[in-house]
């Protein structure tokens, strides 16, 4: 049963990882951080990535439920958006939503170096880490 710190440390072990954070997208609060922030301040990065995550999580155009989303237990809470990826000239940012058993609004943010990072690997690993956070 890994906690927030273990989860962020594991994210930082990915090739090219430069910074990681667990952020609440509703308030913009960083619940935990590791490594560096692109602007030198994790709190600013958390507030900014939270705005992006909130738009993705809330806009109707992204809210179509998947075919496997069965009606009934938990389906109304199921987060339709899995992740948001931003590619910049020097890096990748992967925002992975975390689904909890209670009402929450958190995501993992991983900042990767463009040359050293492996986006496909990072995406898969972040999914596993997000699931590990809520694994009983």
């Amino acid at each position, binding site marked *: *049963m890994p906690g*927030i710190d273990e989860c962020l440390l594991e994210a930082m072990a990915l090739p090219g990882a430069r910074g990681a954070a667990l952020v609440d997208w509703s308030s913009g609060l960083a619940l935990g951080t590791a490594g560096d922030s692109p602007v030198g301040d994790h709190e600013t990065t958390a507030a900014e990535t939270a705005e992006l995550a909130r738009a993705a999580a809330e806009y109707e155009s992204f809210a179509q439920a998947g075919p496997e989303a069965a009606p009934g237990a938990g389906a109304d809470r199921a987060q339709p958006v899995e992740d948001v990826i931003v590619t910049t000239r020097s890096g990748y940012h992967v925002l992975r939503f975390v689904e909890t058993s209670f009402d*929450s609004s958190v995501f993992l943010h991983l900042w990767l170096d463009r040359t050293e990072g492996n986006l496909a690997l990072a995406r898969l690993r972040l999914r596993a880490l997000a699931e590990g956070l809520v694994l009983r």
Partner: protein
Amino acid sequence: MTALATAAVSPLLTRLAAERATGALLRDRGTLFLEDGRIVHAESPATPGLDVLLTTGGGLAPERWREAVDRAGARRQVARFLVDSGGLAGGELEICHLAAIFDAAFFALSPGSGPSRFRRGATHWIGSVRSVPAAAVERETRRRRELLDAVWPYPQLDTSPVVPRAAAPGQTVTARQRALLAHADGLRTPADLAWVLGRPAFHTLLDVRRLAAAGLVETPLAPVRAVRAATTLPDWMTDTQSPDVALLRRLRDALEASL
């Protein structure tokens, strides 16, 4: 930054953190629990507690919460019991507990929260989960105040009943907003809605400000100035005289220091 923005939210908290104190900091609108100067728990009558956040929506059965409090409350290890008994994932507990700390601290450290008392050595039965530096909680509390006003500077929304307005043609209402609006019956305040939805109270205040800014919730009119004028002021004080903030601050600090 102005002197006002950098001023400590609570000088007593800053001092307790510096001396690595352990105990409970009691204020009118909430209590902060410290261990070695770090904040390990917080609760406020203005916010839904960990129990409400975890059990509303069925994530954790209320019986499991009660069982944990009954069996591990006396040992002050409720949090560990919940995780060890499989009721909750370790990461989930940390996420929810941190949300509850920052939520309660926002209200406990609000300007109108009155004087502080410190009960040295007091601990909370929830037990140890994660701790946060006092400075981080103060900084976040200040950021949250500024965020609310940056979204829509109408503080009266925080305490008034939430009155929904019809969406404009083509206007998007998000799923979380719909859930909130569905419970806004014109009587419930943002705090009431936080309890019903099992969401942190600050998140509900913020959502209501965002909804009001989007025109989906009525913005109450500012209280009429006449109410203030009706109270008689001492002769030496005129209506236009602003309170001496620095003096009030020194008075408060002196009062807190003497407690």
